[in-house]
Structures are given as C-alpha cells and as structure tokens.
C-alpha cells in the first residue's frame, strides 16, 4: 500500500510518500503507526504525539482504530488549517 505524508509529518519523515508492505499482524491505523515508529528516528519524531495525527484511508478521514485491510492509500497529517 501507498503511504502519503503532509505538512510537518512529511517534513519530519523526509519524504512525501512511500510504498510499504506491513506484516499481517498490523491491522489498524494505530498498529501501522506503531510499526512505522519502530522503523526509525524520523518516524518516531513524526508520530511522537500519535493522538495529534490525523489519518485518511483512500481519501476518507478515519479514526485510528480503522482497519487497513484493502487500503490502497493511507495518509498521515496534522490537524487541518485550511480556509
């Protein structure tokens, strides 16, 4: 699946997107964050306050307990500040 990062999440991770293949035990957005944090410093920095981070699966806002099965694109970003 493809991951996308925006705003300071993108800056901290150091890339706008990447393709990953999480192991079968990773079934929710929350578990995906835990798995990403274990991958390195930049991810740990981006997700240091995981409750602040918003997520979207295939362009729809989701809560962190959402299942990721079947997702093509998961995005992580800070709270929105548009308008």
């Amino acid at each position, binding site marked *: 699946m493809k991951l*996308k990062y*925006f*705003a*300071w999440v993108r800056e901290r991770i150091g890339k706008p997107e990447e393709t990953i293949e999480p192991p079968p035990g990773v079934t929710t957005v929350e578990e995906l964050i835990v798995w990403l944090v274990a991958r390195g410093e930049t991810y740990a920095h981006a997700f240091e306050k995981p409750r602040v981070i918003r997520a*979207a699966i295939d*362009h729809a*806002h989701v809560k962190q307990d959402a299942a990721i099965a079947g997702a093509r694109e998961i*995005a992580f*970003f*800070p*709270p*929105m*500040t*548009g*308008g």
Partner: protein
Amino acid sequence: MTDNITVRIQETDFDIAREIAGLTAERSDIGAVVSFTGVCRGSEEGSAIAALTLEHYPGMAEAEIARHAETAMSRWPLFGIRVVHRVGRITPGENIVLVVTASKHRQAAFEAAEFMMDYLKANAPFWKRVEAAGGTKWIEARDHDDAAAARWTKS
C-alpha cells in the same frame, strides 16, 4: 434542480466577480448570492508575517470539498456552490479562499456559505505554514474552528 457545484484548487488568484457570474449566469430565479473571501492577514497571533504557504492533499481535498458542497445542497434550497481554494505561497492582502452560494432567499445563502467555511477551516485537508522574520512554522489548528464545524452536526 441539478447540482451546480464547482470546486477548484489553484495557485493563481481568483476574480470574485467572475466566479459569481459563473455561478449565476443564465438564471433568473436566484434572489440571493453570498460570497466569502478569506484573505491573508499581515500578522498571526500578534507577529508580522512575510507570507503563508498552503499545502493540500491533491485528490482528497477536491473530493471532500465537493462532498460537503453536496451536503449543503441537500440541507438548504440552493442553486449552486462555488469554491476556489488557493495553494502555494500567498502574501498578506492576497486572497486565500472563496466560497459563493446562490439561493432564492438570503438565509439559505448565508447559512450555506458559513457551513462551507466552517468545514474548510477545520476539516478540509489543507495546511498553512507561516513565513516570518524568525523562520517558518506550521499554523496549529484552533479548537474554536473545530467547535464551529461541529455546530452543523445533526444530533
């Protein structure tokens, strides 16, 4: 009435009169048109800024705004909604966002424009970064924008 919804995300400025004309042309049943223009202020939280840079989630932003415009069309008797949101670098005094609503009567046009703006501030996938003398910094979301968006939730 058929849904007359236009959503554009662009780097260039918009012409308010042209956007209003685009929404209302060829109709004689519109009695009320409301426009909201969000403008880049010269200061944020008391400090002067040089510019804002706006980032968005391409694809999701357009689709989400259009979905909320459809919700507005179903909740108020509207003839149409037009939203233009700029991204990229924007300096003080420049336009950021435009919402135009058209209806037979004024109350629907006002309420739908407020509904769209509350959504755009709190829930549309856009992020603002401030450029100031001390460097650049992302603007943090404000609780009262969440509260403003929440007041439209049906109980």
